[in-house]
C-alpha cells in the first residue's frame, strides 16, 4: 500500500514538473507581454524598462529556472493587472469555485448514481428510460445556452433565484445545476453501463444464490464494484469542474477561478494565467492521486499490488 502510494506520488510530482514546463513554454510563445501590459502611449523606452523589470529579456532557460524555483514555494509573481500576488488572487477565488463545483458534483452524484443504478438493474424499465433520457439531455444541451435560458426563466420571470453573483444560499442553485448537468449525464451513463455489466457477473449470481436480500446485493456486491469506475469519473469531472467552469462563472458572474481566468486571459496577465493554470493542474493531479487512493481502499487488488 505504502509502496503503491509512493509510486503514485512520484508520478504525480513528475507530472507536476511536466505541467510547469508546458505552461511556461506555452505562455512564452504567445508573444511579448511587455508591449501589451503597458498603456498604449508608452514609449519604446518604457516598454524596454518594463521588460527589464519583469525579466522577460533574460535567456529563456534562466527565466525557467527562476520560474521553477519560485513556483515550488507557490510564488507566481505579482498579477500585472491586479498588482497583488497572483497566488493570493487564485486562493481568494478558490472557495467560490469549490462551492460551485462541489454543489454541482453533489447534485450530479446524488441524482446520477441512483438513477443510473436503477437503469442498470432494470434495463428497459421506466427507470431505465428516465436514466437514458437524463444522460442524453445532460450531454446534448449546450450548458451556457441553458444557463442563459435559466436566468431568463427562473431569474427574471419567476424570480426564484438571483440572476447572478454569489450571495444568498439559493444563488448557487442555478449555476451548480447547469455545471452539474453534463456531469450528471455522464455519471448516469457510466453507472448504468457499469451496473449493467456487473449485474451479469458470476459473483452477482453467486450472491443471489446465497439468498441475500436485493438491497444487500445492489449495494454491497454491485454498487461497490461499480463504484471503482464511477469514482474515477467523479475525480476527473471534479477537476474539470474546478478548471472548466469558465462559461458558467462568466454568465452567472460567479466570483470563482473560471471568471478570473477569463479576465486574466483578456488582460494577458501572464503571472495570473500561469498561477491559475498551474494551480488548477495541481488540484487535478492531486485529485487523481486521491482518486487512486480511494480506489485502493475499495479495491484490494490494487491495495495488494495486483
Amino acid at each position, binding site marked *: 500500500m505504502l509502496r503503491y502510494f509512493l509510486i503514485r506520488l512520484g508520478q504525480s510530482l513528475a507530472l507536476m514538473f511536466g505541467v510547469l514546463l508546458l505552461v511556461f513554454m506555452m505562455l512564452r510563445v*504567445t*508573444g*511579448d507581454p511587455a*508591449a*501589451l501590459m*503597458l*498603456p*498604449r*502611449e*508608452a*514609449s*519604446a523606452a518604457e*516598454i524596454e524598462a518594463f521588460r527589464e523589470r519583469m525579466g522577460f529579456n533574460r535567456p529563456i532557460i534562466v527565466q525557467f529556472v527562476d520560474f521553477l524555483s519560485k513556483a515550488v514555494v507557490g510564488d507566481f509573481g505579482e498579477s500585472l*493587472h*491586479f*498588482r*497583488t500576488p497572483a497566488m493570493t*488572487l487564485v486562493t*481568494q*477565488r478558490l472557495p*467560490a469555485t469549490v462551492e460551485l463545483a462541489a454543489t454541482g458534483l453533489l447534485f450530479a452524484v446524488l441524482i446520477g448514481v441512483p438513477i443510473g443504478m436503477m437503469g442498470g438493474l432494470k434495463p*428497459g424499465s421506466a427507470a431505465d*428510460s428516465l436514466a*437514458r*433520457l437524463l444522460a*442524453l*439531455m445532460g450531454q446534448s444541451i449546450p450548458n451556457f445556452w441553458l444557463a*442563459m*435560458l435559466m*436566468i*431568463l426563466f427562473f*431569474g*427574471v420571470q419567476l*424570480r426564484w433565484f*438571483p*440572476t*447572478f*453573483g*454569489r*450571495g444568498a444560499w439559493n444563488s448557487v442553485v442555478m449555476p451548480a445545476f447547469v455545471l452539474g448537468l453534463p456531469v450528471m449525464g455522464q455519471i448516469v451513463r457510466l453507472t448504468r453501463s457499469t451496473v449493467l455489466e456487473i449485474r451479469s457477473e458470476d459473483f452477482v449470481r453467486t450472491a443471489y444464490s446465497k439468498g441475500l436480500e436485493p438491497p444487500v446485493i445492489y449495494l454491497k456486491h454491485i454498487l461497490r464494484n461499480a463504484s471503482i469506475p464511477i469514482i474515477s469519473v467523479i475525480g476527473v469531472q471534479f477537476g474539470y469542474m474546478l478548471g472548466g467552469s469558465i462559461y458558467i462563472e*462568466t*454568465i*452567472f*458572474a*460567479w*466570483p*470563482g477561478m473560471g*471568471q*478570473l481566468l*477569463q*479576465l486574466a*486571459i*483578456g*488582460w*494577458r496577465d501572464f503571472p495570473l494565467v500561469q498561477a491559475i493554470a498551474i494551480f488548477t493542474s495541481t488540484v487535478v493531479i492531486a485529485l487523481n492521486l486521491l482518486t487512486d487512493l480511494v480506489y485502493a481502499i475499495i479495491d484490494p487488488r490494487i491495495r495488494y499490488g495486483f
Partner: protein
Amino acid sequence: MKAKLLGLLAVILAVSMIVVGCAPAPTPQVVEKVVKETVVVEKPVEKTVVVEKQVVVTPTPGKPQPKGTLRFALSGEPNSLYIPATADKNADIAASQLYDPLVFQDDDGTIVPALAESWEVSKDGTEYIFHLRKGVTFHNGEPFTADDVIATWKYGMGEGSSWPDRYSIAKSVEKIDDYTVRVTTDGPKPLLLVTMHDFWSIIPNEYMEKVGLDGFQQHPIGTGPFMFVEWVKGDHITYQANPNYWREGQPRVEKVIFRFITESSTRVAALTADEIDLTKRLTAEEANQLLSVPGVKVIQYPVARIFYIAFNNLTTGKGLPTEDAKVRQAMNYAVDVDAILKSLFGGAGKRAAGFVASSELGYGVVKPFPYDPEKAKQLLAEAGYPNGFKIDMACPTGAYSHFEEVCQAVAGYLEKVGIKVNLEFMESAHYWDLEAKKELPPLFGDSWADESGEAYNRLKGALGGWDAPYSSWSDPKIDELLDAISKEVDQAKRKALYEELQVYMQENPPFIYLYEPYTFEAMRDRVMDYYPRASEMCYLNKVWLATPE
C-alpha cells in the same frame, strides 16, 4: 424506447417553439419623451437622453440625508482602487468615488475648485500656486494638508503606478505652507489641470506611510464622498456615504455596491429582475430590449472614442499605393459609414469627421468625407490605379461591439471601387501585440478613446511614428503641429492648431475615419441625477434614489 425518445424530442422542440413564439413580437419602440439638451460652453457636448417613461419624481428631501443603496453593475472587476494603478474604466469609476482632486472638471467641462479653493498661474504658464481647502479630513480622520498633495504626486510617479507620466507632468510640487502648494512644470503644460482632475486624487500621506502600498490597496482612503467598506474579490465592492464630506448635502445615497458582471446579457437580466440599479456599456439591442421593461430607463450618449482603419507608412505599407494621399482620400470616399452605422448600430453612432471627437476641442472645422464612390474611383484613376489594387487588412476580434462586422462591411465597400481586400481576423490580445510591433498588414482597424477633453493623446499615440508604440504612421507636418499643441497654453490658439491639423489630415488622411460610437446605459427609474461623461466616467456624489428602499 422509440416513443419515449421521440416524445423527448417533441417536448424539447415544443418548448423551444413556445419560448420563441411567446416572446413579444418586436414592438416598435415608443419614445415618449426626448430631452435634447445641448450645452454650449467652451466645448460643445451633445447629449441625447431617451427616457422611456416620464419619471415620477418625489420632491428632493428637504434636509439632505443620504438614503438608500445604489447597486451599480460594472462590466468587470476593478484591478485596483488606487488611482495610479487603475487599468480600465471600471477601476476608474469605482476608485474615483473615494477621492477628490485639487481641481474638478465639471459635467460641462469647466475646471472648478475642489480640494483647492483657488489657484494662480504664472505668466509663462510653468508655475501654479494652489490654495487648499481647510477643514477637510480623510475618511480616517487625518486632516488634509499640503503634505498630502506632495505625497500623491510622489506616489503617483513611484512603484506600482501605471501612469507615472501623468504625475511627472509636474517638475516639482512644493509646500509653501500647510494650505498652499506650488506646482512647477517644464514649459507650459496646457493639460495639467485636466490631468490633475483625472489622476491627482489626493491620498493621505500619513496613512500611506504607515500601511504601505499593499495596505493602502486593501483599504483605500481618500477625502471623497464615499468611504471604502469591503471588497469581496470577484464579487462586489461596498462603499458607505462619507458623513463629513466637504460638499454640503452630498453624497445623497447611503451605500454604493459595485457588482462585477462581465456578461452583458446577465447585466440586462439582473437589471430587469431589479437586482441592480444601474449598468453601463450595453449594446444598442440590449438597450432596445430594456426600453420595454417597466421601471427601467435607458440613456445613450456619444463617447469620446474614434474608430478607424489605419494606414501604414512605416513598415508593411511602404511602397504600396496607400502612400499616395489621393488613394487614401479615395478610400475615405468609398465607405458609406452612415449605412454601416444604421445597419449595425441602429444608427447609434456618429460619423467621425476626423480624428477629433465631437466633444473635443477644435471639433467642427471639417466635415466628414461624404459617401461618393464615383469620386473615389476618379481619385484612384488620377493616382494611377483605375483598376484598383490588392491589399491586406486585419481586424481584432472580441475587442469592440460589432467591429468584426464593420470591418467586413468596409472591405465590401472598398471592393466596390476596385480595391481587393484580403481581410484577416485576429484575437485582440494577439492583434495588439502585433500592432505594437508594427507588424500588422498595411490596413488595420482599431479605435482610440480619450478622456482629457482634447484629442492630443490620441493623435500623438496613433500618429507619433516610431516613438509611439501603436502608431504606424509618420508625417513631419503632423509632428510639427502636435509639438506646437503640446506647448501652447492659450486655449484659442490650441483650438486653431487643432483646426489646422484637422484640415491637413483631411487632405492627407492617415486613416479611413469611421465613427464615434454611442454608448448605452440603463438604470432603474428611481436613480436620479446620474450624469455620465463622454469619457464614460461618472461621479456619484450627486446621485440620489427617488424611492429609497
